[in-house]
């Protein structure tokens, strides 16, 4: 695979960029930093959903549910285990703190991946709208369960989460997501994702196992959504179950669709655009949601293939 070294280079460059930005973050306006981190987290979410919905063609409306699991698991580790592991004396931003956060993120990601596995299995039997509904139901159930689980704060959510998220972590997570999804899809193994999306029956006739691809897509996608959740929680310092509701899932879906299903660059651009747009529309706050939805409908009508897809895609005809 010739593109591989280039991808590795890109990944390393992103890490360096993240390090530099992180070093400069004291000089960046905190509001800009806030928006920047928001953009990064949304890129992780959108690219990971793109693996499920874009590359593999399995429509999911429950991405916020995976994000919630990651956010709560990561925060639980840093809040409840953190003080025992690194003590109160650890230097802010020091090695101990970052190691703790890194491992917590990993645990959050794995917890979400486990949930992804559980949701991926139904996708073996279902497709299209029905799968979308199962994932929607899953996301809502996660929310209701969190609301009722007092040890994790119930409806009030978890507060006092340490502010561990830095630009470095976000850029690193973004780069890792893009890199992993890119490598997966471009590898020989990963061509199977596209095959499953384009024609499941033909794919299985060609000796591929569609079930495996779907489960892998859900597990990997959920893993990164969980990481994004962990970053989100340690950035906002407080999380509530209602922050991971259906409309949050929809936001991520819209990014993927606007960017163009399966078009990683387009999805990244869409994530950037859709995070910045509401910020620019703030002065007209009351009309913001109206404009936002009009824009959405207009774009769907004018560029149904996604805003940033310029090659002609094979449109999947509706049944």
């Amino acid at each position, binding site marked *: 695979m010739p593109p591989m070294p280039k991808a590795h280079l890109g990944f390393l460059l992103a890490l360096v960029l993240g390090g530099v930005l992180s070093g400069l973050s004291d000089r960046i306006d905190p509001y800009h930093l806030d928006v920047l981190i928001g953009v990064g987290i949304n890129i992780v979410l959108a690219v990971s959903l793109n693996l499920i919905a874009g590359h593999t063609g399995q429509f999911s409306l429950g991405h916020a549910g995976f994000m919630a699991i990651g956010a709560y698991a990561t925060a639980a580790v840093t809040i409840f285990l953190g003080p025992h592991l690194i003590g109160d004396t650890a230097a802010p931003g020091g090695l101990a703190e970052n190691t703790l956060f890194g491992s917590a993120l990993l645990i959050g990601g794995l917890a979400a991946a486990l949930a992804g596995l559980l949701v991926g299995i139904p996708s073996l039997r279902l497709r299209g709208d029905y799968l979308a509904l199962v994932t929607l139901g899953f996301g809502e159930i996660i929310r*209701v369960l969190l609301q009722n689980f007092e040890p994790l704060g119930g409806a009030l959510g978890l507060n006092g989460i340490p502010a561990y998220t830095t630009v470095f972590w976000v850029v690193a997570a973004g780069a890792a997501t893009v890199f992993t999804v890119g490598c997966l899809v471009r590898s020989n193994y990963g061509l199977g994702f596209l095959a499953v999306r384009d024609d499941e029956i033909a794919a299985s006739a060609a000796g591929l196992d569609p079930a495996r691809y779907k489960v892998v897509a859900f597990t990997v996608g959920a893993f990164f959504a969980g990481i994004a959740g962990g970053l989100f929680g340690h950035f906002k310092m407080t*999380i509530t179950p*209602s922050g991971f509701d259906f409309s949050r899932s929809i936001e991520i879906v819209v990014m993927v669709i606007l960017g163009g299903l399966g078009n990683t660059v387009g999805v990244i651009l869409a994530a950037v655009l859709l995070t910045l747009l509401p910020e620019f529309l*703030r002065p007209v706050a009351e009309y913001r949601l109206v404009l936002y939805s009009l824009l959405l409908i207009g774009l769907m009508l004018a560029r149904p293939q996604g805003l940033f897809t310029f090659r002609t895609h094979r449109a999947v005809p509706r049944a």
Partner: protein
Amino acid sequence: MKFVSLLRFATLLAVSPALHAAEPIKIGEIASLTGKEAAFGQSSHKGTVLAVEQLNAVGGVLGRPFELLSEDNQSKSGESATVARKLLSREKVVALLGEVASSRSLEMAPIAQRAKIPMISPSSTNPKVTEVGDYIFRVCFIDPFQGTVMAKFAKETLKARRVAVLTSVSSAYSVGLAKYFKERFLADGGEIALEQKFAEGDKDFKAQLTAVRAAGVDAIFVPGYYTEAALISRQARELGLALPLFGGDGWEAPQLIEIGGKAVEGTYYSTHYSPEDTAHAVQAFVAAFRARWNGETPDAMAALGYDSACVLADAIKRAGGTEGPALRDALAATKGFAGVTGTTNMDPARNASKSAVIVTIKDGQFKFVQSVAP
């Protein structure tokens, strides 16, 4: 680009008085102006706007007018932190006012605390809000007090021994208030016969109420918001339950009577103020509010939004400046401030210790029952 020029024109209008006057004092306000809890956010916002306009009409404080910068969080989680950062870093506001909902106040609080900029929540009653740090204040009482007041009221005035509680599980406010009520009521020798739950957006409570009916209780405590309280009262009456219902400050809104109609007659709730209060300050506020906002009668959220801005202005005057630490100290030292929601005294935990008012509904009107001192 008509729109852009319009915007520029608007900015010019807002800025122009500042050109030949002293530099304005910028205050940030974060409220749920749109979205599912817009009703509360709008009310609070209108109160705050009125306060700022009145303060500016008499020349502001320290010879400087106020400039209120309001940001909407669409009632969404995650938004308040972003707009708080925006107000602090871009607009360099000297203080933050907001939010109504405790869960969203908890999002703003760590940001304000880290920046060492005081934040005053007008009406978040969950105790956790001010526990975030020493820059976080509120001008209302907290749920443990409200729960205690209603538990005592249930026992002493309603003579209730067995009480049912209907809690909204998706609302941190409801869960918290229910908890403090139950603790106190049990400690006083009462009995919680059963607790039934519902979630935000529910409109049918007959299932829960039928279970309540079967349990045979003396009264029903509904720590929720006014739409839920009104519907629960209606449906309780439709099921033939003639028991008293009572709740907390979430009930406060004219819509309680509009929606509840005859069913809310004889229900009780605790709140921060009553527009019927004959005190001069309250009547002046009610009249000014009606004149400013198309004849609307201010509810408790509006009164607290108003008081939050007034308490801040008072502290700025006493601090003699707008520096964060000095302003914080002045806010913490607030004693005997007479506002429309009663006298505000900041306690050491930065919560306003003030009286609660118990209100009932009689002949389609809110009627003051009693005032309970802290």
